[in-house]
């Protein structure tokens, strides 16, 4: 990882999103009021999680064809960091929902779907812990990952759109585009999403390098 430019870009994008996220103009809407600014932080968490899970499944498939343990390392560290961003998404969503929907967990299909998807990926990590032998562990968890990913997509992005939901964009609610008539929110949301995705990949790359180093030097690093 000789290159720092994308890490600095990530930092700049996120600084921009924090400053303009708080100071920039947002539509004045009832109930959400200023909390609509949470969109700049809550939504990128999920974009980052999705990107990391996508990287993970790609490297799982790569492992199945190559057998190279490095691919397996990328796959597992992507899930590790993805689960953390998933947790941040859940926490930020629950805090927000508590004050706007009146309930931190109002049995909304998207929330329930994300909870089940989280449990699935935690099960991936538990599965890895249960298998001792390196090749077996990598192969079986890669196959599990290949199943988990499309199920996660269905649970979080397809099913909520088909039923009644509180989330914008699902279940008969107009999408985010209704809030964002003049594009002033998209101007902060898109750079913020890119910034957080880059940070997520950065943290994953750090964990991957630590793991690779430990593997090379035979040092047991988690």
């Amino acid at each position, binding site marked *: 990882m000789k290159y720092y430019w994308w890490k600095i870009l990530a930092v700049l*994008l*996120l600084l921009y999103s924090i400053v*303009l996220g708080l100071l920039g*103009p947002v539509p*004045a809407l009832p*109930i959400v009021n200023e909390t609509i600014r949470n969109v700049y932080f809550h939504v990128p968490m999920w974009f980052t999680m999705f990107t990391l899970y996508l990287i993970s499944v790609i490297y799982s498939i790569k492992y199945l064809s190559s057998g190279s343990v490095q691919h397996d390392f990328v796959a597992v560290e992507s899930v590790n960091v993805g689960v953390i961003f998933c947790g941040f998404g859940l926490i930020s969503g629950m805090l927000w929902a508590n004050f706007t929907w009146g309930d931190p967990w109002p049995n909304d299909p998207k929330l329930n779907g994300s909870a089940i998807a989280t449990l699935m990926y935690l099960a991936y990590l538990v599965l890895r812990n249960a298998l001792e032998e390196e090749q077996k562990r990598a192969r079986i968890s890669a196959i599990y990952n290949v199943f988990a990913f499309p199920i996660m997509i269905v649970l979080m992005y397809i099913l909520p759109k088909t039923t009644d939901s509180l989330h914008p964009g699902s279940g008969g609610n107009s999408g985010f585009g209704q809030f964002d008539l003049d594009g002033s929110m998209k*101007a902060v949301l898109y750079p913020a999403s890119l910034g957080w995705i880059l940070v997520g990949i950065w943290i994953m790359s750090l964990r991957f390098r630590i793991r690779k*180093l430990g593997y090379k030097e035979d040092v047991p690093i988690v």
Partner: protein
Amino acid sequence: MKKIILSFLLVLNGLICSFAQSNTGAEMATGLRSSGKIYVVVLVLVVLFLGLVIYLFTIDKKLKRLENHFRK
């Protein structure tokens, strides 16, 4: 860089346009803004964020040093 400049111009445009829109009646945190206290919030968040970023960079540098050491 182009994206940042373009995004900044977009926001500036939005800011200028927003003076033309009438308030729909939903309360916004104009008190925090008019007293200038919003800048305290921004400052706090920026400081915390930069702290985390510095932490990430130090981990990165340490790792790089280790990798170079073992590459020899």
